[in-house]
C-alpha cells in the first residue's frame, strides 16, 4: 500500500507542479499573478480533446496543436491587453484584473460552447499499465511524471542557460534597467506569456487524460493548490514551483491515505501558513532586502 500511495503522491505532485510552473514563470518575470492561467489550463484540455477525441488525430499532434493554439492566445492577451496597460503606466493590479477578465470570459465561453457536463478524454495509452506485487502504475501516470520532469528541465535550461532566459531574469529584477540594456522587454514578455500559457495548456491536457475526463470546473480545485505550491516553493522560482507542487501532492495523498480525505486540505494549508510565518519568501524564494 505504501508503494502505491507513493506513486499516487508523485503523480498528484506532478499535476500540481505542471500547473504551477507556467504561473511561476509569468510571476517570476513580471511579478504578475496571471489569473487567466486557469482558463488556459481548461482551454488547452478542451482543444486537445476536440482534436484527439472528436477529430481522431493522433495524440502527439493534437497535443502540439493545442499547446501552440493556446500559447498564441496567451501571447495575444499580453500584446492586446497587458502591453497597452504597461505602456500607459498602469499598475500590476490593473494587469491582474485584466487577466482575470480574460480568464472569466474564456472559461464561460467554453461553458456556452461545450456545455458544462463532463466530457471523456480517452487514454492515449489504452489503459496499459505495469503491475507490480502491491502496486499498479498506469502508463498515463508515468507519462504525467515524465512530462513534469521534462518540462522542469526544459524550462530550467531556458531560464538559466539561454539568452532569452537571461533577458527574462533581467526584467524580473529591474525592468527599467533591462530596457536600458537594450532588451526588447515587450517581446521577451510576450514570449514569457507564450511559454507560460503553453505550460498551463499542457498541464490541463495531461491532467484530463490522467483523470480520463474533463469539465469546466476542474480548474477550481487546482487553482488554490497552484497558489499554495507557488508560495510553498518560493514564488517566481521554477524549481520552487515543482518542489512546492511535489510536497503538496505527497502531503495530500498521505494525509488522505492514512488519516482522512476530509482533512487533506487542512494539512496542506497548515503547512503553507508555517512556511509563510518562518520563511515568507518560500523554501527556494530569495529574500528581498529593503534598500532606501
Amino acid at each position, binding site marked *: 500500500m505504501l508503494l502505491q500511495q507513493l506513486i499516487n503522491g508523485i503523480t498528484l505532485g506532478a499535476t500540481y507542479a505542471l500547473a504551477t510552473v507556467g504561473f511561476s514563470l509569468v510571476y517570476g518575470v513580471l511579478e504578475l499573478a496571471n489569473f487567466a492561467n486557469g482558463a488556459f489550463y481548461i482551454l488547452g484540455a478542451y482543444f486537445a480533446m476536440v482534436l484527439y477525441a472528436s477529430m481522431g488525430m493522433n495524440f502527439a499532434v493534437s497535443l502540439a496543436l493545442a499547446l501552440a493554439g493556446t500559447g498564441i492566445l496567451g501571447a495575444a492577451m499580453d500584446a492586446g491587453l497587458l502591453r497597452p496597460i504597461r505602456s500607459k503606466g498602469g499598475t500590476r493590479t490593473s494587469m491582474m484584473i485584466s487577466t482575470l477578465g480574460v480568464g472569466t470570459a474564456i472559461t464561460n465561453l467554453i461553458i456556452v460552447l461545450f456545455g*458544462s457536463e463532463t466530457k471523456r478524454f480517452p487514454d492515449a495509452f489504452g489503459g496499459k499499465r505495469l503491475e507490480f506485487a502491491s502496486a499498479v502504475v498506469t502508463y498515463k501516470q508515468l507519462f504525467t511524471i515524465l512530462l513534469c520532469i521534462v518540462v522542469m528541465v526544459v524550462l530550467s535550461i531556458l531560464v538559466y542557460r539561454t539568452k532569452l532566459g537571461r533577458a527574462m531574469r533581467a526584467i524580473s529584477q529591474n525592468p527599467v534597467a533591462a530596457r536600458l540594456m537594450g532588451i526588447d522587454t515587450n517581446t521577451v514578455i510576450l514570449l514569457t506569456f507564450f511559454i507560460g500559457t503553453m505550460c498551463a495548456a499542457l498541464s490541463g491536457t495531461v491532467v484530463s487524460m490522467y483523470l480520463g475526463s474533463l469539465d469546466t470546473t476542474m480548474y477550481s480545485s487546482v487553482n488554490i493548490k497552484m497558489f499554495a505550491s507557488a508560495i510553498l516553493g518560493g514564488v517566481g522560482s521554477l524549481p520552487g514551483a515543482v518542489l512546492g507542487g511535489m510536497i503538496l501532492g505527497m502531503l495530500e495523498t498521505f494525509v488522505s491515505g492514512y488519516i482522512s480525505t476530509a482533512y487533506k486540505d487542512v494539512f496542506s494549508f497548515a503547512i503553507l501558513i508555517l512556511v509563510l510565518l518562518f520563511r515568507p519568501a518560500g523554501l527556494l524564494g530569495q529574500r528581498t532586502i529593503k534598500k532606501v
Partner: protein
Amino acid sequence: MKKILAAILIAAMILSLAACGGNSTPSTTKADGTTQAASKDDIKLASIAPITGNLAQHGVSIQNAVNLRLKQYNEAGGYQGRKVVVDFYDDQGTAAEAVNVANKIVDGNYIACVGPYTSACGLAIGSLFGEENITLYAVSASHEDFAKQNDMCTTQCAPQSRSREFECDWLWDEGYRKVAYLYLNDDTGNAAQNWFSKFWTAKGGELVLSESFLADQKDFSAVMTKIVSSGVEVISSYANYASAITIIQQARDLGYKGLIVFGGNAQQQEVIDVCGEAAEGVKFISQFSNDYPTEGVKAFVESYEKEYGRKPTQVDYQAYEATNHILQVLDELGPDDTKAIGEKIHNNPKSHSLYGDYPYVNGVPQFPLPIVQIKDGVYCTYK
C-alpha cells in the same frame, strides 16, 4: 468637513434599476428557446432550475421534463380549455440567486413552482414560499429539513433515511459484509452518510471506512488504494455524476473489482459515455429506471426519447413527476387557491404517478425505489 460626503446610490443606478424595474414584470425568461407568450387566460407555472453554473446539466433536464409534460397536458385540452404556461428562472445552483429569483416568482401570480434542484436553494427560499402560500416543489432535495419547513414545501426525492435503509437491507441480503462509504461533503451527503452507517452497523455489517470529499475533488487515488488494500467488497457513495465518473475510473485503474453503488442523482448518461466499460455493473439506488414495468413509465420514456433523442434519467423523471402531480391537483382544485393546491400536494393520499397510485406524506413521496444498473452500456433495472 462639516457635511457628510455620502454619495450613496447614484443616479445611474436609479435610472437603470427603474428601467429594469419597468420591464421586469414577470416577462418570460428566455430559456433554451422555449419562450411562451403569456396571454391573458393562460395558467402560469413557474420553475427554478440551475440553467447556468456547475449544475447546468440538471437545469437542462428539468426544462425538458416540465416542457414535455405541459405540452402533453395542453394538447389534451389543458385545464378547461386554458393552457398552462411555464416561466423558467435561473438560480445558478446558488442560494443567493435562488432568493433573488424567488422574489420575482412570488409576485408573478403563479399557481406553483417546480424546483429548485438542490436542498441548499430549497432551504434558502422555503420560508418565503410558505408565507406567500405558493407551492415550492423541489426536484431532488432529499435533505430531511426541506419538506418540514412548511406545507408549501414538497420534494420529489425520497429522503436519505428511506433510500439508505433500503440500500442496507438490499446489500445485506445480497451477502455483502465489508463496505466503504464515500460521500460528497454537503448537507445531503452528510445526511446520507449518517443514515447509512446507522442502518449498516445496526444490521451488523462492517463499515471499513467512510470518507467525505469536496465537490471539485478530482483525485481519489489515495483513498482508492486504501480501499483496495483493505479488502472492501462494496464501495457505496453519495456523489454527483462528475465525481462518480472519477471514482469509477480511479477504482478500476487501481484494480478494484468489487461492487460500486451510487445514489440516484449520479445516474446520468455521461457516466456511461465517459467511463465506457469501466462502468459495467455499477448500480444505483434510484427513484427511476427507464424499463420499470409500469404503463406510465413506458409512455414517459417513449415520449421523452421521441422529443429529446435520449433516454430520461432520474432528474428528468423527478421534474416530470412533479409537474404531473401539480397538474393532477390543478384538475381537482382549479388554479385559484394556491394555498389549497400546496396543502393537497403536501399530503396527497393517492396520486396517480408513473408508478401507479402512491401517497405523498408531509411533502415526501412514498414511492418504490428501483435499483438500476449499467449493463452492456445501458441503464436497466436490476431489481
